[in-house]
């Protein structure tokens, strides 16, 4: 049985139960966060690095976490920021443009052993990589994580109206991509 976030946070603040509570938090959110990160950075090893950094940041910041915020919103916020930061660092390291990073991500998808160019699911993944980074985050949070705009607004620090518009544009771009490929 999973403990709720409030109980986990209280246990985390006690030295004797800190590690146990933290392990429980990881177990509870690891898959959701992993897939959110993976859809943004594509490669498993990159996703693993980013996810571990996310949880290390959680460990460092959890004692100061304000309980008036929801833990999962905070985790998604860190996960999104870490993923976008990782992609930005990749761009800087390679001194390549955003288009080249997109192409790199698409190549990673095509290099996946399960890749099937004829399947819509894989086309969808390629289409997602054509989106600008922030729009990609909006689309995956809404489409895969089924996150309400209100929560997404706290994760991405963007107004609900702007998120709705962004999601609408993203869906249209993806639709165009799939039709043309």
């Amino acid at each position, binding site marked *: 049985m999973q403990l709720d976030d*409030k109980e986990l946070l209280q246990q985390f603040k006690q030295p004797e139960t800190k590690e146990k509570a933290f392990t429980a938090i990881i177990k509870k959110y690891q898959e959701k966060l*992993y897939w959110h990160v993976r859809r943004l950075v594509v490669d*498993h090893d990159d996703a*693993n690095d980013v996810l*571990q950094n996310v949880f290390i940041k959680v460990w460092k910041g959890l004692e100061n976490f304000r309980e008036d915020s929801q833990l*999962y919103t905070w985790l998604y916020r860190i996960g999104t920021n870490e993923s976008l930061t990782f992609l930005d660092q990749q761009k800087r390291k390679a001194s390549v443009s955003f288009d080249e990073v997109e192409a790199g991500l698409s190549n990673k998808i095509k290099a*996946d052993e399960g890749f099937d160019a004829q399947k819509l699911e*894989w086309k969808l993944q390629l289409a997602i990589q054509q989106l600008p980074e922030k729009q990609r985050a909006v689309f995956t949070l809404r489409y895969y994580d089924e996150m309400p705009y209100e929560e997404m607004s706290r994760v991405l620090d963007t107004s609900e109206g702007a998120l709705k518009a962004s999601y609408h544009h993203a*869906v249209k771009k*993806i639709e165009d991509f799939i039709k043309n490929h």
Partner: protein
Amino acid sequence: MSYDRSMENRETIINELMEISPAIANISRSNVFSVPPSYFNNLAQEVLARIQVEDISFGVKDAPFSVPAGYFDGLAGSILNKINQQKEQSVTEELEELAPLLNSISKAPVYQVPEGYFESLELTIPLKLDKPSARVFSFGKIGRTLQYAVAASVAGILMFGAYMYTSQNTEGDDMVISYDSALNMNVTAELAETNEQEIAAYLNEVPGVGYNVTTTPTSDEINVDEYLETASDDEIKDYLNEYQETGITTTGS
């Protein structure tokens, strides 16, 4: 509170997607990516292992070093005491370490001063301070060009004075100024003796100064126009004869 996707939220999202793009709404959301076996089973342990490694470095920051009780209360006082001790000892002790011989020599002054010098000094200095200073003429709003011109004029006057001085004291070649005579020349005195007309003549002759300098009319000089109107014919003849002799030409009206 955990993040539970509710059926209501899912239906809302699907309906929204159907409105925007039915084609996308009909695509299966099955996961196309794969994850290494038992990845999620080991993730928590891996993360904790990394945290423990990084905690070693955090530990340095949080190291539980202790300080003696009341250490900070007396710290400022003990530092000031040390500074004061160093101040008192620094000169003699430093010299003792560097050169003990110098430290053994008396520091009493060996030079003599005139008798009563220090007693009269108190009276002399105020007298000097009360002495009116030389009058300072401000250039005011005179332009920088004019300032340079004045400076050039002064330099020219000094040179002219030196020339006049040497020409009076040397035989033969009066253009030659000996080094000794130039060194010994009292320029200020020479300049004081040089009259205004000579200075004006020099400035008008020296090329590059660019200013016409006229002397202030003296009581000895004659206003030509006024003189011609009032003088008799004989007086005019005398006047013309006088100035023809000195080589000055006049432009008459």
